[in-house]
C-alpha cells in the first residue's frame, strides 16, 4: 500500500512540475509563426530538453517503485525469520549458526522468489528497463544531430544498411541451395 501511495504522490508531483515548466515557456509568448523565425530550432531543442527531464522523473519513479517492492520483501523476510527463530543464535556454536543460516536462506528464498514471480514486480522491472532504454534513445537522437551536421549517416541509416545486408545474406543462402538442387537434379539426369 505504501508503494502505491508513493507512486500516486510521485505522479501528482510530476504532473505539477511539468505544468509549471510549460507555464514558464508560455509566459515568453513565442510567436506562433515560429517555423519562419529563429525560435524554431530553439523550440526543438527545448522539446528535447523537456523530454529528457520528463524521462528522468519517470525513471526516478520506476526506481522508487522497484526499491519499495524489494525493501518491503526484505522487511517481510526479516519479520518472518524473527517469528521462526525469535532469538539470535549463539555465534560460538557452529551447529546453531548453521541451523539459523538454513532457516534464513529458506525464508529469504521463499519471499524473494514470490516477489520475482509476481506480476507487479515484473512490470516494475519492465518499466525500469524501458525507461532506461529511452535514455539511450534520446542520447542517440542528440548524436544523430551531430552526425547530420557532419554529413555522416545516422544510426537509422546504418541500421537500414545492416538490415539489407542480413536479408541479402539470407537470399544468397537460398539461391545457393536452389542452385545445388538444380545441379544435383541435372547430374541425375545425365547419369540416367
Amino acid at each position, binding site marked *: 500500500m505504501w508503494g502505491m501511495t508513493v507512486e500516486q504522490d510521485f505522479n501528482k508531483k510530476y504532473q505539477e512540475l511539468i505544468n509549471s515548466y510549460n507555464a514558464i515557456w508560455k509566459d515568453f509568448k513565442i510567436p506562433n509563426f515560429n517555423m519562419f523565425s529563429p525560435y524554431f530550432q530553439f523550440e526543438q531543442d527545448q522539446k528535447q530538453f523537456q523530454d529528457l527531464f520528463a524521462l528522468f522523473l519517470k525513471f526516478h519513479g520506476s526506481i522508487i517503485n522497484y526499491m519499495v517492492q524489494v525493501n518491503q520483501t526484505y522487511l517481510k523476510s526479516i519479520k518472518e525469520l524473527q517469528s521462526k527463530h525469535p532469538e539470535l543464535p549463539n555465534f560460538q556454536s557452529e551447529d546453531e549458526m548453521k541451523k539459523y543460516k538454513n532457516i534464513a536462506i529458506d525464508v529469504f528464498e521463499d519471499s524473494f*522468489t514470490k516477489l520475482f514471480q509476481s506480476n507487479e514486480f515484473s512490470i516494475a522491472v519492465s518499466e525500469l528497463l524501458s525507461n532506461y532504454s*529511452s535514455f539511450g534513445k534520446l542520447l542517440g537522437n542528440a548524436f544523430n544531430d551531430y552526425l547530420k551536421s557532419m554529413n555522416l549517416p545516422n544510426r537509422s541509416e546504418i541500421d537500414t544498411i545492416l538490415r539489407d545486408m542480413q536479408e541479402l545474406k539470407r537470399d544468397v543462402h537460398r539461391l545457393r541451395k536452389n542452385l545445388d538442387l538444380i545441379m544435383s537434379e541435372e547430374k541425375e539426369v545425365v547419369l540416367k
Partner: protein
Amino acid sequence: MKKKKLSLNKVAATSDSGIKVDYIPSKVPSVDNTTKSHSGELEKDKNNDLMAKINKVLEVYRKSSSLDVGATPHEVVKETRLYRLLHYKPIFDSPIRPPILIVYALINRSYILDLQKDKSWVRNLVNQGFDVYLIDWKPPSLNDKYVSFDDYVNVFIDQCVDYIRNNKSVEKITLHGYCMGATMSAMYCSLQQYKIKNLVTLAPVIDTSKDSTVIGNFARHLDVEKIMESVGNMPPELLRTCFSALKPFKQGVNKYYSLLEHINDRRFIENFLRIEKWLYDIPPIAGEAFKQWIKNIYQENLLVKNKMKLGDEFVNLSRINIPLLNIIANEDHLVSPEGSAELNNLVSSKDKRIMRFPTGHVGLIASSYSQINVLPKTGRWFFLRSNT
C-alpha cells in the same frame, strides 16, 4: 588440552591443496601469544582459521580464469563469423551412425556440455561410440543485430546439417538440442525434416503459457522492442541480472558459504569454479533473435499455435513425425517442465517418448547424476534408433 594455534603463514606452508596463499589482507587478526583465557584463544583460532579460508577463496578466484573447459578432443571443422562446428574425435574407427549434431542455446556458452571430464555430456556420448558434432555459437557483434531465428535455423543449423551429411555421406542425421537449442532443433525439424532421422530435445522451451518460472514472468512483461531499439543486442549484464533472480539465496548466497566450507577440497573447488566460469560467461544475444524469442515465443506463444514464421514459412510442429525423445528435468527453474512436455503432444511422431529426471536445468546435462542416470538411457535410445 592445549589448542593448536594457526598463523596465516603456517596455513600457507602446510596447505594440502597445493594452493599457495600469498595474499594477506591488512586486517588479519594477529595471534596474541600472551592470551591467557581458553575461550579467548579458541575465538582467535577460529578467526585465524576463517581468515585463512577467505584468503584461500581469494587465491582460488584469481586462478579461476586458467581452468580448462571443453577438454574432450575435437577439431573445428567449419567456422563462420557466428558459429564454429566442432567434431569430437570418435573412439572407434566406424562410430555408430547416424552422426549426432548437438545444437546449443544462444544463452551462455556451449562448453557446459563438456565442462569437465567426469561430467561431460559430449564425452559420455563419444565414449558410448557415437559420432558427435556440436554447434558452438559465437558472440554476435552490433553488426549482427538483425540476425534472426530464420538465420539461426534456416541458415546456420542447415549449413551444419548439410556439412555433416556431405562429409559423412549420410542422408539423415540425429538432431539433439539443449534448452533454446532444443527449441531451434524442433523448429528445424518442422521445416527440414527430410534431413533428420531422430530428434532428441533436452529441456526445450515450447508452451510458454505453462511456464511458471521467474524468467517466464520477466519475459512476459518485457517491452523488448523498446529495449532492443536502444541497445541493439541483448547485453550480457541484463541477462546476468535476470539469472541472478533465479534461486537468489539457495544458489546465490548458499553456494559461497559451501565454498568456504569446502575450501580444502580441491575437487569441490574445481567443480565450483567451472560452473561459476560458465555462469558468468554470458555473450550478448542478437537483437532480432532475442526480440523473436521474447515476443513470439514467451509473449504470443506462437510455437504452440503453429504461427511462428521463419522466413516465408510457418513453423508447424505437427509436421514432425520422426522419432522423438524429450528429456525433461522435473526441478528445472529456468524452463518449465510442463511447457517442455507439450512438445510430445504437438508432434505427429508415433515413436515419441518423454524421460523425466528429478534434477535441475544444469544438473540434467552437467552432473554426476546425469552421467549415471540420464546419459545411459539417452545413449540406449540413440543406439536402438541407429543404423547399426
